[in-house]
């Protein structure tokens, strides 16, 4: 199945501003999808998205359609949401105080 992924914020310099279209196997998880993108884009994308334990960095938020993904193990296509664009936001703490 084909998935469209778009990156926002402090990651576009690595992943680009245009959406990525990927073919992923049925019952793929969000982690599978992002790993495929790391393969395509390069390790700098991993550094922006993941910590060393392989979990999403705290400033990364992923949405499938309008719903925020709760876990990297979330299956794409659950809850009839598949088909919607996957949006990956990398937020930055432009400091306050």
């Amino acid at each position, binding site marked *: 199945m084909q998935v469209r992924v778009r990156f*926002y*914020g*402090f*990651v*576009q*310099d690595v992943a680009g*501003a245009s959406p990525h279209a990927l073919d992923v196997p049925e019952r793929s998880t969000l982690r599978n999808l992002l790993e495929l993108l790391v393969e395509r884009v390069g390790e700098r994308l991993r*550094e922006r998205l993941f*910590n*060393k334990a392989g979990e999403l*960095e*705290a*400033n990364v*938020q992923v949405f499938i359609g*309008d719903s925020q993904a709760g876990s990297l193990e979330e299956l794409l296509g659950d809850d009839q949401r598949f088909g919607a664009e996957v*949006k990956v*936001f990398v*937020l*930055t*703490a*432009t*400091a*306050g*105080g």
Partner: protein
Amino acid sequence: MESAQVQDDRWIPTACGACYSVCALLVHRVNGTVVKIEGNPDSATNLGRLCPRGVSGIMTLYNPHRVDVPLKRTNPQKGLDIDPGWVEITWEEALEVVAARLKKIRQEDPRKLLLTGTVTTHDEVPFAKIFAMAFGTPNGWNSGAGNHCGTAEHLFGALLHASWSKQPDPDHCRYLLNFGTASGFGSYYCVSGMAQRIADARLRGMKHVAIDPFLSPSAEKADEWIPIRPGTDGALALALLYVLLHELNICDSDYLKHHTNGPYLIGDDGLYLRDAKEQLPLVWDPADGAAKPFNSATVRDFALEGEFSLDGARARPAFSLLKEHLKPFTPEWAEPITAIPAATIRRIAKEFGTEARIGSTIALDGKVLPYRPVAVMYFKGAQGHKNALLTCMALELLTEIVGASNVPGGLLGMNACSLGHPDTGGPKWIPHSDRDGLMVTGYWPNIPPPYPPKEVKEPETIDLRSMVPTCPGSSGALPVVMADPKRFKVPYEIEMNLHVGSNYLMTFANPKAVEAAFRNVFQVSFALFLDESTYLSDIVLPAASYLERLSHTADWMSSNSPVGEWCYHIRQPVVDPIAQRRSVCEVLLELAERMEMREDFYAFINLVLHLKEPYALDGANRYSWEEIVDRRHKSFFGEEHGLEWFKEHGLLKWPKKVEEVYWKPFSHARVPIYFEWFKPLGEKVKGMSQKLGIDLDTSAFQPLPEWRPCRSHRENGSDYDLYAIYYKFPMQTFSGTYDNPWLDEVSQIDRFAYRVAIHTETARRKGISEGDWMEIASVSSGNIIRGRAALTEGIHPEVIAIAGCGGHWSKFLPIANHEEKGLCFEWLMPVGLDNVDIPSLTQDQCVKVRVVKAKEQG
């Protein structure tokens, strides 16, 4: 005025913007002209009260020295006092230049854009941060890193109080131990409302003990003033902890067992001992004589003291380690450091510990809660030193060991828990716990919050925050790194500074050194005035002031009152923008259009401002600023509470629930009294710094507090015998209000506002009399400043104190730029990492100086 001539006579509700307290206003407009500003009595934030700055806003609105048109510099030379050679340009030309440059940088490397601002621009800077996020830069800096931000204090706000800042419970506190803050006395958050609430608290008998080198505007209203040597607050806190735990045996065991990591077992490596199966921190259950995961349902009791053996390894509860650690820190140890007699330290500890009333309860709204009516307050004064992290830790532990954290009478995180409006449930944030059982904030203005700890990464930001993730906000390292990014292995240089209203040249440290960091950057400033920092600008855009603009938000967690009612305000224009002034937020939206960045900007606006369907912005459509603000209000408060409703009513309020204000007894989240993760994080920072060849002192990353001397305690050059400190002055906000004629007038009436406080005896010894000119030379920066002496016995004999942030030199600020209009303290402070607390990246704000009588003319 004859009534027949009056065509327009309205009182318009809006919100102040003269500081970060966001007091509610009623503005009287007659025939299109503002004639008076008063506090809005309906607001729970300021209770109708208003400070001199708020009343004087009218003089900022109509100040003839305001920037009224876009300007372009013609002089390519930049410098602190080099005239930029401003010429007027059109908005069209300005926006074309700015958009083209932004677009180019975004295409090449978005990290090369820096956003600078200040917290007083409550709506503009947060919205500009959204712009910066969409742009793709990680670089931002609020100039509060220097002389106004609490920096390390905010870190402990996140770790212990789920909040950016804290306040004493004004409804129930009976003993306020105040380490140099102006909370309730003239500045700090929620300023006017807290002034009323703390005045009421004093009337009902709350004792206020001020620990401060100077009998400041806050300390002069205390029941007792205890002068302390600057930068030694941590030593005093350690001695107080010693007396409480080792001499008086006072602590709240029940609180420590159930709401802190005090019972967590620590191994000889300083880390938690964890169970083999789930890797959860272990506690010792004395009832069963066994170690169990902290959250096991079988735990019948928690050991706080003792030594146990787990598979042959020594295990001690964190509280036990803390108590043992404190043994050297006796009052006799602290006396020569702090200059406070040991007997006074013992008396204060006893008063504090007794008034904590451990074991007592209070019933509020039918709920029985712990009653601990003592609070320890501190902010910039105690914190703004090289020893910031460990000082804050010691100060916080005073509150924690007596269980006075976020319970009635104690120290409250400001709006740490919000269950939302009764009709919509929004806005909502609730502290929760992580897998180790420790508290994670429900809301944090910078993303992400400091806990859980982030990984240490190579410097990708221009301020070392990616490498030192414990820095909670503005970094004291930015000017150092920005001046020489290659030295710090930052793979780019800042090319452009989007500068929203801060006067960073006067508020951080040595202006000459800060200027060197910014001189070669293309700077676009949104400005009210041509202040000193705009001397480095290439384009200046005339910004609308808070009385001329609409805001998407006039509130944040620390502007609301800590008790009473939730209260959300509108900020709306009371007059149309004068001349060619424009709202910063509207200009940013237009820039996004010109840069073809609308879709990204809207996506981040939806995310950060929580615009949910049906109020989310659609990137296919263009929205006006009014439409966006309308959607923001409706998304939080429902369809009936849109912009038009707020314009008419001014504010929306509802009562705070007991479980919101005093959230701790209702929460399972624990807070640390042993900061276990600091040590391994520090080792990672050290490893990274060694790898990159950067010399960083990471020794303060430790789980328990100490007191360490700052640079000012060690630098004792010949005749440099006095400490120079600055303090916040209630009549002025940072450096931004000194050209306001009314505030200038009241500042001239106050004997200390524009002069330098020096002890009478110290002055006599130096041959200095009241009103004499003094030369103040910094041992650290080498700079010399001049000011007139104000003699007083209300200051530590080793200290001189400088009010606020005067000493302007911009020729475009004709009211402020006279020698007798205060001093810019920052000339005395050096820029450099040896003046920065590395774990929090806090800039020290205390320095040794030589003071001599000077000639009348400079």
